[in-house]
């Protein structure tokens, strides 16, 4: 054994010890964070008798895949699914329609008062939906929009969308960040070539800022698919319910079919989980950029 061996060995051993300690901690944390989701999936496969046993077992002895079919029949699941899809698609399209040009005006165009108006947009991020929900409900009622999906479908096209996690103001802010990160020469070159502002936006800026569009689209999807408060207030007919409202119907005062509820919750969460798995990069980028809730 040389002198260096004696000196290096304990340091290496210590590093290995620290590293295994980190692994142990991280494995415990991962289990802690995944356990509720495992419990959801496991419960969704338990039979009606197996779900109410004490003490409960984590995994079902005989998985009941038929629970899913029964869960879909328990409530008008696919109708709610369709409503959720309509609302989400409208929110994505609406936010793109209203926020992309606005972000271009705030990020690329130069005009007097631009920064002042942009501060108003930023202040809008602070605005709680609770402040607007009462007057908006009355306005939509007077316009005879209550009783249709329109109170959730139309406003995003006018830059009006607020959920707890994401809003049109955040979309404008995010897109502006992406647009400003583009090399200035790119836009100037387009102008020298005589392209108008709209042509610059569509043919030069958008193709390069695709990452930003995808990020904003994902956030719009995620937040509108899972939104609860706005549907709760504006959709007062069972046939209009989105899935986030419909899930409540598995619960009643005296009895909750937890296995069906967990099955439906899983299918409800699945599109979002899949989007997350395949587009993790964009989520992480978006959260890092805005610091806002995902």
């Amino acid at each position, binding site marked *: 054994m040389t002198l260096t061996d004696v000196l290096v060995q304990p340091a290496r051993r210590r590093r290995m010890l620290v*590293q295994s300690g*980190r*692994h142990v901690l*991280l*494995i415990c944390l*991962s289990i802690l*964070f*995944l356990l*509720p*989701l495992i*419990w*959801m999936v496991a*419960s969704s496969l338990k039979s009606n008798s197996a*779900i109410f046993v004490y*003490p*409960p077992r984590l995994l079902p002895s005989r998985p009941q895949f038929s629970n899913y079919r029964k869960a879909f029949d328990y409530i008008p699941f696919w109708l709610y699914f369709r409503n959720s899809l309509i609302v989400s698609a409208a929110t994505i399209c609406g936010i793109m*329609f*209203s926020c992309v*040009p*606005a972000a271009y*005006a705030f990020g690329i*165009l130069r*005009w007097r008062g*631009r920064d002042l108006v942009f501060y108003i947009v930023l202040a809008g991020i*602070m*605005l*709680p939906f609770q*402040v*607007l929900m*009462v*007057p*908006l*409900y*009355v*306005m939509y009622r007077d316009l005879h929009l209550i009783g249709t999906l329109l109170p959730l479908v139309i*406003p995003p*096209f*006018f*830059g*009006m969308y607020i959920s*707890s996690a994401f809003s*049109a103001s955040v979309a404008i802010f995010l897109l502006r960040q992406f647009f400003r990160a583009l090399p200035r*020469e790119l836009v100037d070159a387009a102008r020298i070539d005589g392209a108008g*502002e709209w042509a610059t936006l569509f043919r030069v800026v958008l193709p390069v800022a695709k990452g930003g569009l995808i990020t904003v689209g994902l956030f719009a999807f995620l937040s509108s698919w*899972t939104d*609860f408060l706005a549907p*709760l*207030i504006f959709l007062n007919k069972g046939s209009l319910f989105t899935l*986030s409202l419909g899930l*409540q119907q598995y619960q009643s*005062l005296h009895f909750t079919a*937890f296995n069906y509820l*967990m099955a439906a*919750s*899983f299918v*409800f969460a699945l599109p*979002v989980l899949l*989007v997350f798995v395949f587009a993790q990069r964009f989520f992480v980028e978006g959260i*890092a950029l805005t610091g806002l*809730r995902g």
Partner: protein
Amino acid sequence: MQIAAVAHEADVVRESRPRRLLRGPLPFLLPWLVGFLGLTVVPLLLSLYWSFTNYDMLQSPQWVGTSNYVQLVHDPLFRTSVENTAFMVVIGAPAGIILGLGCALLLRRPIRGSALYRGAIFMPAVVPSVAVAVIFIWIFNPDYGLLNAGLGLVHIRPQGWLADPSLAKPSLLILLVWEAVGQIMVLMLAGLAEIPGELYEAASLDGAKGWQRLRYITLPLLSPVLFYSFIVWIIFYLQFFTEAFVATASNLGAPVNSTLFYSIYLYQSAFSFLKMGYASAMAWILFVVTMIITVILFRLQRRFVFYRGEQHA
């Protein structure tokens, strides 16, 4: 670039004012502007006006001056809702941020399987709040839930959780923090990645220990991100609704008003009791308090937050 600027100025000089507006930002802002005026400014003003009226949505509003605000001060339920909400803000925001920061510090240096660990901790963040709430209702179920079963293994008596007035709020906190930690962790990891490694090398040459590096390098340099997270999460806990509503849907605020949060009481006032004026007053108080807290935090930021490169500015 200069040519373009000159050409652009020439255009501007030649055009009349309306045409210039049409060529300028207005067409780009139009959809947003219409929505901002019609669906934000007008409702805000309506709500401010209604906060000084009695309004049940059936008959037209009747002016009552500041009576709604006076009533609120004397309303015991209002006070309960403020206390419950304060509890969540004061405990929930720091808890989530400390845990999120802890996870980020654990995952900061390279480790095998870090993507898997990160994904697992972040996963709850993408589960819809409604689904989170129903999963936890089931986990917290006093008779057949996972949590009491787990506690039974270590011989702890089963608890009532959401059904127990003294545990309902902590139970909701568990659920909300479970949702939040992954998002905070991702943000903290992004912030940590910005800190230059040379600083740590210099510090260890000077003999700084682990916690000293954390105290004198990591935390100061991360303070902008920490500060920002505090604003975002304080506002979140002031306004959060879905989880509490779903968890107590059959009897809002139960047990014995221990989960009657500000947003829940606001919702009830408006849509259960049809006291639109009262609810509008509550909404405006929430709005003003949100703004005041934000301003205070920004003031504090000047004292506590360290920005790199500030000394050059």
